[in-house]
């Protein structure tokens, strides 16, 4: 009797779960589906973002190829072969101007007045004028042909636009309107003949230029006023180099074919290794990512060079040296930095830091610092300093965790053997947490390279590869970054245009860089777990 009652109680207890079912689901099931659902949504959203990014970016290479194709067909490439030597020549004449300015200043310092100085430089001026005038014929030829090529390109673009429009109409079922739309087909062959027809005139102009330049160089070499000036001698040597290289352009121009197809690889290399990012240009748009990558890297490296020593030292101090009182103050204080909105930091950079750094660079007794005084208020260094500030909390927190997480018994063993605090730190704690510290630095780097607002506001936004020949001075050059260019230009491009897709490609490159950094950081962390067993 008792046993059966007992059995009943047991079975009702075991079946008790059934009473909690709602819509056939127990509470446990609901919890499981809720969390599982959330995780699934996160995965799907991330996948959609990736697909969108790739879809929008992928069309770029085809469009860029067409872009380069038009550049070739319309003869712009041909004209650029003539423009290139002229630009080189322009830089030579600019250097001559610099040399004159220096001499002029030297003369004033000797005590002459302005007129006297000008008088003394008369012979130099004559030489410089003759030098500059040597290219006037060639410039004329190029300037004429530039207009022709631009016109061809414009017509090609208009007809391409019309073609697109017609296709849209056909797709929309408006066949009549489509038929009415006149598409002006550009006869490239005819136009190109016009452009390549300039070759004899160009050749004549180049020959004239060579002769005049040789004459000018020999005058400068022989004259008294040119003796002992090293910079002038440099310009003359450069000019001679220029003259010897000049004929090579002719061979390239002769070999050039307007109808040679552009391979897709050219479109890819023009993007990845292109040295120019030039948009909305009257001549030719280039989407080369190098200036942006180098700008991003320069700014990030400056930031890391400043942030790493501060953040890692602070982490070591907090985890090993600080008293509990200091710890409870400094740690939240540093972590508070990440609460400052980056736009506020950028504003601070423009209003305070940029100006302060430039005034500092103008201080007389700091002249020995390479690159001082800096010419731009907003430059890579300004942005780098602020980025360092934003990355310090990331590096500090993670590095501090890494050091604190070194098992206590390593520290005890070291102390028990008679090690000082410093010896324990250097010989045990840092080696044991090194990979943690490295991954903290990498994650800080990832944070910095993805930061947008600060660089947009403070990096100076000049799209150019930093001039590495400047040495330290390149730190003070304004640069543009991958993140900055997306933020700046995405708002004003037409959806689906080549520029739009180019920005997406920049986004993808940025994404890949961040992914790589995170991947490496995780690998390092995994090693770190093994190493401390």
């Amino acid at each position, binding site marked *: 009797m008792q046993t059966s009652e007992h059995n009943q109680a047991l079975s009702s207890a075991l079946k008790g779960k059934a009473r909690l079912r709602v819509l056939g689901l127990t509470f446990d099931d609901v919890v499981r589906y809720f969390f599982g659902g959330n995780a699934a949504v996160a995965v799907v959203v991330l996948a959609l973002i990736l697909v969108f990014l790739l879809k929008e970016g992928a069309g770029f290479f085809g469009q860029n190829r067409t872009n380069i194709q038009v550049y070739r067909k319309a003869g712009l490439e041909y004209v650029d072969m003539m423009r290139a030597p002229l630009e080189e020549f322009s830089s030579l004449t600019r250097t001559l101007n610099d040399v004159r300015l220096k001499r002029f200043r030297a003369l004033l310092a000797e005590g002459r007045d302005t007129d006297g100085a000008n008088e003394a430089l008369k012979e130099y001026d004559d030489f410089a004028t003759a030098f500059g005038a040597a290219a006037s014929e060639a410039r004329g030829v190029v300037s004429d042909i530039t207009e022709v090529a631009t016109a061809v390109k414009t017509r090609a673009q208009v007809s391409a636009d019309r073609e697109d429009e017609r296709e849209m109409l056909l797709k929309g079922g408006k066949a009549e309107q489509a038929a009415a739309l006149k598409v002006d087909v550009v006869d490239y062959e005819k136009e190109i003949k016009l452009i390549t027809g300039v070759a004899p005139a160009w050749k004549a102009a180049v020959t004239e230029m060579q002769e005049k330049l040789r004459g000018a160089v020999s005058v400068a070499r022989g004259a008294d006023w040119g003796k002992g000036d090293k910079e002038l001698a440099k310009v003359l040597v450069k000019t001679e180099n220029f003259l010897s290289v000049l004929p090579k352009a002719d061979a390239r121009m002769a070999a050039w074919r307007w109808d040679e197809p552009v391979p897709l690889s050219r479109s890819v290399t023009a993007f990845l290794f292109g040295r120019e990012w030039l948009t909305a240009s009257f001549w030719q748009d280039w989407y080369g990512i190098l200036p942006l990558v180098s700008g991003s890297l320069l700014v990030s490296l400056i930031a890391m060079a400043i942030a790493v020593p501060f953040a890692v030292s602070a982490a070591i101090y907090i985890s090993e040296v600080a008293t*509990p009182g200091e710890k409870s103050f400094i740690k939240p204080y540093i972590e508070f930095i990440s609460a400052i909105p980056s736009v506020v930091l950028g504003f601070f950079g423009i209003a305070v830091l940029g100006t302060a750094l430039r005034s500092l660079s103008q201080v007389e007794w700091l002249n020995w610092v390479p690159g001082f005084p800096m010419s731009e208020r907003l430059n890579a260094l300004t942005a780098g300093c602020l980025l360092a500030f934003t990355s310090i909390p990331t590096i500090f927190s993670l590095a501090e965790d890494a050091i604190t997480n070194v*098992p206590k*018994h*390593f*520290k*005890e*063993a*070291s*102390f*028990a*053997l*008679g*090690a*000082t605090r410093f*010896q324990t730190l250097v*010989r*045990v704690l840092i*080696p*044991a947490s090194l990979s943690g510290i490295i991954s903290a630095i990498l994650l800080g780097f990832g944070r910095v390279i993805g930061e947008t607002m600060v660089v947009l506001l403070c990096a100076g936004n000049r799209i150019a590869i930093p001039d590495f020949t400047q040495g330290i001075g390149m730190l003070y050059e304004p640069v543009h970054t991958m993140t900055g260019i997306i933020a700046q230009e995405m708002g004003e491009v037409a959806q689906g245009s080549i520029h739009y897709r180019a920005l997406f490609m920049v986004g993808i490159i940025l994404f890949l860089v961040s992914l790589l950094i995170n991947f490496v950081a995780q690998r390092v962390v995994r090693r770190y777990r093994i*190493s*401390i*067993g």
Partner: protein
Amino acid sequence: MSVDFATPTVSLVKTEPSPNSSATGPIQATAPVPMIEVENLDFFYGKSQALHGVSLKIPARQVTAFIGPSGCGKSTLLRCFNRMNDLIEGTRIGRGHIKIQGIDIYDPSVDVIALRRQVGMVFQKSNPFPKSIYQNISYGLELQGVKDKARLDAVVEKSLRGAALWDEVKDRLHTSALGLSGGQQQRLCIARAIAVEPAVILMDEPCSALDPIATSKVEELIQELKKQFTIVIVTHSMQQAGRCSDKTAFFYLGKLIEMDVTQKVFTKPAQQQTEDYITGRFG
């Protein structure tokens, strides 16, 4: 004035003949010179008192075992001997002294680093550094600035032989110490401790994480080591205390209840509490 714990005092103690090496006599008529002397010690963690008026003398070159239930203060006292408690925030000595070779080690003039070189320690959990076997042993000497490769080699071999580990690891001295088994790691830690030639070795439950075979190896080792070092061992195992110690101190609730020759404590304890504990009636 800083008190120097370096070699002279040590060599003095080490060359001193032990007047009574046999601990089995009923009463130690001529007690050996105490290595460590604790006088009326009160010890606090913050506001809670962990030791109440403990006084004892630990003879040189013998094994002294501390037994007692968890939380009785035996590990705390052990960690006072090399001032490892300094690393814990809020600890302090309330009253009393600890003297090692007659020097009050809590005197402000004492160099803690030198003290710890003289009073080595082996921990409950074997804790070799994530370095090679060789580097683990040479670490203590390198801290003292020894760079002579030949001397380091000699010390590494001597220490590993001393810890009965040499034959097992001589072919892989430069592989990671973390690749050793638990028992080997613990003997490596002992080798590491003796490499700096301390006067005293403190062992805080050195065998609690080891299997019986590894445990018996460590116990044999302790018997070897006591010829050269003063050993203080904290253990939860009555058998271990009985097997390898010369003297046993029983602690309960932060007080030293009884300390005497091991055989006497285990056969004819003077206090009822001791008898209850070792016969398993409480604790």
